[in-house]
């Protein structure tokens, strides 16, 4: 069975969501999940001018931690991520690669002054983690609004889509040996 290495770091309010997330990912991708501490110092990705963490650098670090097999590695954090040129990202992944990272920072109601909801945060985190891992299996953004691979730039977009792949994306995943 393929392995998914989950690497949580600075998870903050999302710390107690990790177990549930791992279970969900194991079920969705048909993988065995292994839990690892980060082998890198996340602060290397910190950009003082922006007060955010560069997800490109975090991806590079996660890649170093990934074993040289067909497994995937997913970083999970509550840090605010960005890629140079963009103001923020919910997560990032290598298309058809090994590594992905997802952040709960902008998925949390607290950031928008809304009442905190652990359930909502968990669902959003699951959707974005599934979405980013989908990219590592060579899936690109999907035009089906309900598919988890739909691109969501804002939090309401994340809420609108489901946590499932549409039939086309599912077929593409199967083609890539998943599920």
């Amino acid at each position, binding site marked *: 069975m393929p392995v998914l290495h989950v690497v949580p770091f600075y998870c903050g309010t999302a710390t107690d969501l990790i177990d549930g997330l791992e279970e969900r990912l194991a079920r969705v991708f048909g993988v065995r999940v292994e839990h690892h501490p980060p082998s890198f110092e996340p602060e290397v990705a910190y950009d003082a001018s922006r007060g955010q963490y560069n997800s490109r650098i975090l991806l590079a670090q996660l890649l170093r931690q990934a074993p040289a097999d067909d497994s995937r590695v997913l970083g999970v954090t509550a840090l605010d991520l960005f890629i140079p*040129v*963009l103001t923020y990202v919910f997560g990032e*992944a*290598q*298309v058809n690669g090994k590594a992905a990272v997802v952040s709960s920072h902008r998925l949390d109601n607290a950031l928008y002054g809304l009442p905190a909801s652990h359930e909502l945060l968990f669902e959003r985190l699951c959707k974005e983690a599934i979405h980013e891992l989908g990219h590592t299996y060579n899936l*690109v953004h999907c035009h089906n609004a309900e598919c988890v691979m739909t691109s969501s*730039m*804002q939090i309401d977009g994340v809420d609108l889509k489901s946590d499932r792949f549409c039939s086309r994306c599912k077929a593409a995943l199967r083609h890539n040996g998943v599920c």
Partner: protein
Amino acid sequence: MSTHEANILVVDDEFAVRDSLYNWFRKDGYHVHAAENATEALRALQDQAFDVILLDIKMPGMDGMELQSRIHTIDPEIAVIMITAFGSVETAVQALKQGAFDYVTKPIDPDELSHLVHRALEQRRLQKENVQLRETIDEIGAADTIVGESPAILKVLELIRHVAKTEATVLIRGESGTGKELIARAIHANSARRYFPIVPVNCGAVPNELLESELFGHEKGAFTGAQHRRKGRIEMADGGTLFLDEVGAINPKMQVDLLRTLETKEFTRLGGSKSIKVDFRIICATNEDLEVAVEEGRFREDFYYRINVFTIEAPPLRSRPSDIPLLAEHIVKRLARQMDKRITEIHPDAMQLLMDYAWPGNVRELINAIERAMVVGTPPTIQPEDLPVWGKRSTNSFSGESLADVEKDHIASVLERTGWNITRAAEILRVDRVTVYNKIKKYDLRQPATRGGKK
């Protein structure tokens, strides 16, 4: 344009920006290309076409502004989005004035970037669609052209070219459905009057008592029911061409009025007293023998000579069977577009049927036959059974008129339809199989090479 077909070029000297945008757009399913500077970008533009270019304004060497102007020269329809640092918005506005699609300020809000690229691609898609529609309109506009390569039709085309540049009155003769109006329109379209209207009047379709008012117009109260002043066709044709189809149907009284109008270039509306000046060319068409009509006194000799300055004979379709495939394909293409039906071809057997048929109704009948076939047929091919001429005796292929000739042709036709299935042919002919064999032997009928290659 679907995301997966769109090509995006990212031009930025900063690796981190290039790399980020490259990966960002790849996740959206775009084909992405990244260039470090203007030279690389221009090289990429030589190699492939891009729909959207994201361009950093500040770059060493040729900067974004200059590159944007070069891109605009190479392909003004590429949507260029300028990337600018906070504080250099004025430069970006300058880029917009030079034709850039829009600009974004670093760091870019992902939502804004996504919307911007979608909008740029949508504009690009609309531009492409616009070009395609224009091409389609041009094709539709050119659809009603004279099609054919036979000597008969080439002669007609030569006559059209010859007479179009003159002001001569033209008489087009030919059977019904041979495209006389098409010839008239071709003359008009190639004449100096082409920017003015061609006004057709089917004189045979309008009763003579109404034709007068139709041609000359009328003043209010000119006759019962004339509640308003109305311009006639002659007035409408001012500057252009008046096309009188079935000119033989005009009565002698009106022929006098028309002759006077042709001579003086002036006329008066019915019930009016004011003389109106007009400048028009007249083209007439007829399927009647006007010489006989003149002899019989139905057609005035002076009017006949006035309209018969230059004659073009529209050849019947049976005299140019070699044009049928070209015509048929042209009609299929045109109707497929009009009917939005994906029929693209005619089966060789169906084409043979079309070529064998005598087409007494000429091109009009051919159009109707193909239109019917396209209604009943299944895309992409018109089959013999879709054609209304299916099973009709081909007058072209008749070998003779004796009873034996007719019998031979009929048996051959039934055998062809049944694919030389003797039992089926015998059933249709209501004779026994032995009789069919005897007739085949008697008339020396031979099975042509079948579709499957069997003999």
